[in-house]
């Protein structure tokens, strides 16, 4: 077996099966368990990233495990899957490192590490899977892991929110399964490679879209995401910022971007849904007072921008949207992790009780500012380039109402993030608790994410060249 195929298999199998060894590692000692979990995260990242060279060279790698009735498990590394896998695994690894200190004084740590790694493994499986059925299988596995993670604190309220999360996303996933079954009977296969360039019926596309919107917390299925903020900040950044909600946009890119040619009118409908989602959630972010809920609303809003890029139907916008996935994952994970430091040291999530924290936690404040600037899309941060490409592509599409909705959304992004930063770090001290800087690994993690956001802006040539090549090579039906 070739090395790339081995790497492909290990990138999925090691975290999925490794997750079940974490409870055994925990029997040895706590440091062993923590080290093992971080190693699994890092290993997964390197395995995924090692495929980068292969796919940039224009090759792909596939591995098939035969299942009856055309349900084969197919792992396939192409430019899109490797891109997405590398981002997800990278952010997950950072989050695992940050977790070492962050959750060290809570219950259920072993379960936490096992579930984070299982989530990472399922994510890898989902991203690399070239069979719609196995995408669904891994999709549900991520849902299971997120159920346990959102319910990490076990009060009634937490568990109820966790149940809401899994019920909404599983409902969406079941709708998606209906769509998958339609495709199965229409074409007799679920192999995405064989379905490349086919037309898809409205009904199947609609059912799949329900699944995508529910996983990506887009209107009308958005309410679970702010509620799920009861989870630890590491979880929210893993699930709600960087990785889980990106499953929806990834699936959209995979199914409607590079496999099927979406029917006319479908993309336009998606644009309007996304536009409404961007506006409504940005409005909610402007008035909420819970730091994590604000960032969660901001996530919903930003995801809509990704949908704008993916659904605009031209290459600039599509490449921009993929770039947006990268930039947003890094920056939003940074914001949530900063929120974790703030929450733990200020002992509150209410931004009205904060204020003047910049003097007591300058590094966190700086990282927060850098990440915010990237999310806002201020040059020279990475977020600027992705937002610019998405908007210029959308302008080419020429749908003026949608464009105006998103411009308003972008302005509101600016407003709520400035408001958030001001309320937390500037102004009069709220006098709450005795705030101090977070621990060394935590602060280092957020600073690393912030600086990577800056560096990606400076070196924008490489990621944008990659996404443009990807769009040219794989895109279907793009102008």
């Amino acid at each position, binding site marked *: 077996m070739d090395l790339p195929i081995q790497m492909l298999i290990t990138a999925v199998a090691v975290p999925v099966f490794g997750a079940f060894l974490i409870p055994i590692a925990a029997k040895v000692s706590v440091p062993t368990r923590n080290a093992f979990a971080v190693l699994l995260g890092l290993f997964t990242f390197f395995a995924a990233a090692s495929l980068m060279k292969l796919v940039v060279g224009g090759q792909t790698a596939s591995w098939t495990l035969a299942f009856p*009735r055309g349900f084969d498990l197919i792992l396939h590394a192409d430019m899109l899957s490797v891109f997405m896998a590398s981002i997800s695994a990278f952010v997950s690894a950072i989050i695992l490192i940050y977790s070492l200190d962050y959750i060290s004084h809570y219950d259920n740590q072993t379960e936490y590490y096992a579930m984070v790694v299982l989530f990472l493994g399922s994510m890898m499986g989902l991203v690399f899977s070239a069979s719609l059925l196995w995408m669904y299988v891994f999709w549900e596995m991520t849902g299971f892991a997120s159920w346990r993670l959102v319910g990490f604190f076990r*009060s009634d309220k937490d568990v109820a929110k966790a*149940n809401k999360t899994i019920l909404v996303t599983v409902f969406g996933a079941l709708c998606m399964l209906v769509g998958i079954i339609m495709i199965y009977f229409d074409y007799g296969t679920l192999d995405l490679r064989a379905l490349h360039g086919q037309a898809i019926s409205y009904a199947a596309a609609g059912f799949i879209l329900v699944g995508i919107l529910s996983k990506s917390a887009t209107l009308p299925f958005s309410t679970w995401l702010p509620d799920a903020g009861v989870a630890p900040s590491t979880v929210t950044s893993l699930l709600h910022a960087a990785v889980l909600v990106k499953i929806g946009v990834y699936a959209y890119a995979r199914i409607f971007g590079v496999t099927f040619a979406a029917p006319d009118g479908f993309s336009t409908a998606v644009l309007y849904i996304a536009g409404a989602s961007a506006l409504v959630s940005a409005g909610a972010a402007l008035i909420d007072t819970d730091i994590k809920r604000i960032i969660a609303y901001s996530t919903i809003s930003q995801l809509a921008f990704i949908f704008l890029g993916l659904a605009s139907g031209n290459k600039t916008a599509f490449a921009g949207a993929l770039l947006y996935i990268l930039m947003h994952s890094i920056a939003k994970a940074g914001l949530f992790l900063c929120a974790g430091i703030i929450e733990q040291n200020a002992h509150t999530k209410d931004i009205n009780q904060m204020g003047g924290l910049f003097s007591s936690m300058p590094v966190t404040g700086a990282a927060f500012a850098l990440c915010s600037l990237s999310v806002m899309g201020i040059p020279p941060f990475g977020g600027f380039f992705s937002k610019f490409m998405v908007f210029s592509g959308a302008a080419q599409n020429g749908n003026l109402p949608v464009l105006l909705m998103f411009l308003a959304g972008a302005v509101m992004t600016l407003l709520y993030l400035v408001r958030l930063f001001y309320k937390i770090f500037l102004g009069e001290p709220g006098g709450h608790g005795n705030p101090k800087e977070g621990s060394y690994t935590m602060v280092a993690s957020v600073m690393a994410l912030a600086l990577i956001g800056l560096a990606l802006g400076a070196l924008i040539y490489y990621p944008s060249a990659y996404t443009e090549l990807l769009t040219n090579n794989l895109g279907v039906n793009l102008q």
Partner: protein
Amino acid sequence: MDKGLLAYLLIPLLSAVIIPFAARTRPKMADILANVTLLAGLANLLWLALRPSMIAGGFADIPGDGLSLLLVAAVYLVGLCVTFFSAYFIEEGLPNRPAYYSLLLVSVAAMTGVVTTTDFFTLYVFIEVLAVTSFALITTDDSSAGIEGALKYFFLTFPASVLIIVGIAILMMTLGSLSYENLRLFMASDAPAGPVTFASALIMLGFIVKSGVVPFHTWTPDAYQGAYAPVSAHLAGIVTKISGVYAIIKLATLLRFFDGRAQALSEMLMFLGMLSIAVGALAALKQTNFKRMLAFSSISQIGYIVLAAGLGTPLAIMGAVFHLINHATFKTVLFLNSASLEKSTGTTDMDKLGGMEHSMPWTSWTSIVALLSTAGVPPLSGFWSKLLIILALWESGLRVYAVLALLFSIVTLAYFMMMQKKVFFGKKTPASERVQEVSAPLLAPVVLMSAIIVALGLLFPYFYAYVKVVAERIIL
């Protein structure tokens, strides 16, 4: 009678006779004899079905129609889990301990008879033996709830037996024979089927009552809730499946639903199946007692099997058989866990429980595996069987049924999530203070069953190959 499997009927029967004598001076002998009998039988069956040459050959050499063997194995597996669990569960002073094990073994023998017989009369005899043993088993701890459950079981299932015997009588008069083969040949011919379908419909109705399909479901929650804890696992896990659902699947294949004979019966069966899925799931949402909720969940899951049996295409039969086996595994886990909870806390009222996950982690995690499989969450076994059923429905153009059956999974997930939240998460309640995990022998059966759930999910291609052979043999 499938003679190759006769030993699996006779040996437990023999043990059942020996137990009262052997246990006269040493009560523990009853436990040992029952467990050894079932373990030996199961080991034997596993060798028969899963020896390497058999797997390599794609199960082509499986004896008989394959279905009997598979179901006998399921009967032995659940029976073994229940007897092993009982050995550590029942109190030392239980006066009728040997009788309890004898009845369990007679019940296993009767179920073996049901699944190996090839004519309706023998089927009826074993179904009645099974009904009498179940009736006696429910009252093991002679509480008033047990008596009530047993009486309800009696009053609802014995009229069903009347329907079955009347149906069999008419079948005898019209067909002149009671063997399965004759019915199959008759249905395959072009002869007008009127009286034969009527007789079959009566028999089918009897078995529908015995399976607890809506609207004849009212006896199951009371019987399961009132029954002695391990007995409810035995009843829900396997007895109602064999005494009702298996016979429905068998009749569906004999009546050739797959080529459109007995169309009205087939449609009625599918409708009742869908109704069961819906009513069972919605009723389960409102329950506060763990065992009652599980009983309604059983009604809902049986609905899937009946829906598939009513469709009767080869793919649907494969799904039905697979789901029947899966249901035996996950319901046994959940009912045995409810028995463990009852033993540790003295109650199965979900409102009185809470925060059990730290004191009973194994029980909590095995419940999660079983409930996810019931709700059809991949990659566990329940997902694949449900998928097969839904594909079969879709393939036959019954898209509304397919989508409804799929979407009711979310209701299944919802009531189980509520259960998990009330029982295992949340704050500790007075009833769950100072509770400890039950002993390892009580956990062994549920851990084994959970492992089977995961294994059947991951090894789906092998199991699929097996049920494919079964479907080919019983349908063609």
